[in-house]
């Protein structure tokens, strides 16, 4: 039973790691957000299902910046301290479009396979 729980955990962690970047890029489409806002959106839009440790968002954002997918800058904001805002670069927008296409095809294919598998076809 413990082994099963661990397998589920491992699978979910792996699946999340791959998809979180897609979610962050989608959130940043056409607007700039700072880390805390992104974390809030992730939680609100996923209705708590994607309960990521907020700390994992920052390293991911920094990696994406390294890769030239997002860019960041510090900006004064009304009613608060200066915050580091993130936005998609042109490369990021292009990447988002492509990954979304891949994602759609991939999830649909997976769904077809798992549905048929469960029916024992």
């Amino acid at each position: 039973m413990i082994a099963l729980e661990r397998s589920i955990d491992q699978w979910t962690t792996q699946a999340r790691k791959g998809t979180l970047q897609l979610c962050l890029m989608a959130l940043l489409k056409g607007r700039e957000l700072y880390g805390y806002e992104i974390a809030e959106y992730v939680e609100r839009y996923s209705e708590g299902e994607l309960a990521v440790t907020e700390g994992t968002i920052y390293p991911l954002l920094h990696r994406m910046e390294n890769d030239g997918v997002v860019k960041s800058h510090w900006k004064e904001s009304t009613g608060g301290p200066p915050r580091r805002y993130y936005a998609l670069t042109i490369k990021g927008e292009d990447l988002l479009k492509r990954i979304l296409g891949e994602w759609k095809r991939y999830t649909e294919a997976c769904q077809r396979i798992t549905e048929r598998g469960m029916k024992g076809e």
Partner: protein
Amino acid sequence: MSEEIDRLIRDYLENLKKSLRGIAEENVDEVVREIRTHIEDAVRSKTEGERPPELQTVQRVLEKLGDPKRYGRELAIAKMGMKLDKAKYCPYCGAELAPRDVFCAECGRPTEKPIGVYIISVLSILAGASMIFRGALLFVSPYMMRRPPLVFGMENFIIVVMLELVIGGVLLPTGIGLWKLKKWGWCTAIVASILIFGNAVYDLIGGAVVTHLRTTSMIVAATMTTLILLYLVARRKFFGIKW
């Protein structure tokens, strides 16, 4: 903010700083500043009105942000950029490994062979193969030359050939076992080393050694096997041996 809350946040950021040491030296301050703003934002949004924040609220915020020590690890992976896609996995249990892990955090097996094990296993394979080759050559030489072996009597001849073949036959698989980090490889290597060591010492003390060259080679053999024994015992963990 109360002193206690202040200390809590300070400790968290201090740990974060520590975990970033050696990983993101150039922008530690920026990361710490960013996380500090995050904490402040989160605490503010969870504290309604003007009330000062409670300790539990701050604790929950920090909990949600995750272990600050893990942050450095995540960032280390992130900094590796593309290398993340080629993440290392434990060859034994499949768990993902951090970039600098020598042992798997899940099953405790080593993620790569130490260089000394490579050297010993190659030496063992070479010695084993050459002994088998020599034994085989010795065995066929009288037939090829169509006369009985010159140096030894027939009995000694058979013993020498058998010894070459048997020892070679042990050393060759031992080398392979060491290369693959197998437990049995480690055990046979230990036994073989002890035997070779014992033989060398026996020859030295027993006076069977007559020439300087042979004395020297026996001393070298004894020293090398001692070193190999010590090394293998020290590296036993790599073979999954626990004591």
